[in-house]
């Protein structure tokens, strides 16, 4: 603090900021050790040479017709795995969402829900939590062991993880809507499915479809990487090329990857505008 500087120009929050920055650094130090954070390894001659050779190979990307046809096939398989997985996820998620939501509870109409329906609902909810907390990549690893390498494992992995996500969100959407119509139907003797189709679905159909389409887009992104554990699609091809250090093939596939993600983004926006 020199005498020349008038005190009004001093930042009053300065000491606090310095303290919190130092505290953050102290917390950060163990994290740096745990992650073996050694950026200088990146510029070691050996690493630089390997990286340089690999990245130098990126240009020009491989645009040979035979290879492009192969990549196009893998692209379609990626989309197909995501779509088939989503279809199966819907088959699992819709019944679970119907069972787990509290709006369709007949015993809860006059007051408190009975013990058995309550237990069933909580059970389904717990199942949904387990399904969606295991990452799809881990499900894929499991199914590759059971059904062998190939798209079946990818489809099953997406089906299980996404049924957990969809089931939970469907439940939340259905429960957040106005219950008056559904309850009126139930009170007057309508069956639960009737109450769902005529009381709940008209209110929430657009939100449900729009969320489903958004998740389909996410499923395409995740099915593209499931191939890394052998579940088919673009990831498997990329894994092969990377293991052979074939930079030009990897470059082509990275471009195709960005294109695919962009296309899925566009298709999903179009679909949501149409039916959302």
């Amino acid at each position: 603090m020199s005498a020349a500087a008038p005190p009004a120009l001093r930042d009053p929050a300065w000491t606090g900021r310095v303290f919190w920055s130092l505290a953050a650094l102290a917390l950060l130090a163990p994290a740096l050790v745990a992650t073996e954070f050694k950026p200088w390894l990146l510029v070691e001659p050996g690493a630089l040479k390997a990286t340089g050779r690999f990245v130098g190979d990126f240009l020009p990307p491989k645009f040979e017709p035979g290879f492009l046809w192969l990549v196009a096939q893998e692209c379609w398989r990626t989309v197909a795995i995501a779509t088939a997985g989503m279809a199966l996820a819907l088959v699992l998620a819709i019944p679970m969402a119907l069972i787990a939501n509290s709006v369709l509870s007949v015993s809860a109409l006059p007051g408190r829900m009975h013990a058995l329906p309550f237990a069933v609902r909580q059970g389904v909810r717990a199942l949904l939590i387990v399904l969606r907390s295991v990452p799809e990549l881990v499900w894929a690893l499991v199914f590759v062991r059971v059904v062998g390498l190939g798209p079946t494992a990818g489809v099953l992995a997406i089906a299980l993880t996404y049924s957990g996500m969809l089931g939970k969100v469907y439940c939340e959407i259905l429960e957040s809507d106005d219950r008056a119509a559904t309850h009126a139907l139930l009170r007057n003797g309508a069956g639960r499915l009737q109450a769902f189709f005529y009381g709940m679905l008209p209110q929430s159909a657009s939100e449900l479809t729009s969320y489903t389409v958004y998740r389909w887009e996410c499923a395409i992104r995740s099915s593209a990487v499931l191939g890394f554990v052998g579940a088919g699609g673009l990831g498997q091809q990329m894994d092969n090329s990377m293991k052979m250090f074939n930079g030009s093939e990897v470059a082509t596939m990275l471009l195709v990857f960005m294109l695919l993600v962009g296309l899925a983004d566009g298709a999903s926006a179009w679909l949501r505008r149409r039916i959302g």
Partner: protein
Amino acid sequence: MSRPSHAAAWGFLAALTVASFWTLDLQWAKFLSADAARRMGRFLLELLAPTAEPGFLRKLAVASAETLAMSALGTLLAVLAGLAFAVPAARTHAGDRALWRWPTRLVLNALRSIPELVWAALLIIAAGLGPFAGTLALAFHTTGVLGRLFAEAIENAPLGPAFALRAQGAGAAKVFFYATLPQILPQLMSYALYRWENNIRAAAVLGVVGGGGLGQLLSFHMGLFHMRETSSILIAMLLLVALVDVASYFARRILQR
């Protein structure tokens, strides 16, 4: 649901679904066979018996800490890099020509559209197997995501305080640090926390391609059919994700106050 625009979209979805099932050579026979059911059943039964051997639990704790550190450090690096990209990617006032807006946005889009797992597989070549590659992979992808969100936050910040400073003759750096940043800081923190939650999930599986952490332990033990260890690792993953969700929930509550 009868308007023609609806019909086109539904038709597209139906055709896509049918074509998907048609063209994939799905091994339903294999999956639904008695043999597969038996294997699946045995697999799940074995998963119900996690190991609690002290030596393995210690390894598990180290791997969990590694995963946690990877996700935290990856997110932190991404916050810093994202902010560095977001400033040139945002048009802050009407007189700002923002020459770098499109080039930086292009870079951010590229960073974002490549998933963490692919980044990890690429970075292993430069950084070697282990958590460092995983951390960088998280940082690269998350920089793309956060950079774009931050740029939008900067563009949407109220212009008054920045204008007042600029009118007093303050430079661009001062305007950013004393007018724009304090206004958007809560939003940035909330985005960063949300990405951290995502990154802990991603960090848990990055090890499958060699990016360190719990995933590496998982793919090792699963590859050798060590089911008791696999089961413990899966439980650790679920606990870690739940823990971060809870921590992030409370951090958000504190920030909102």
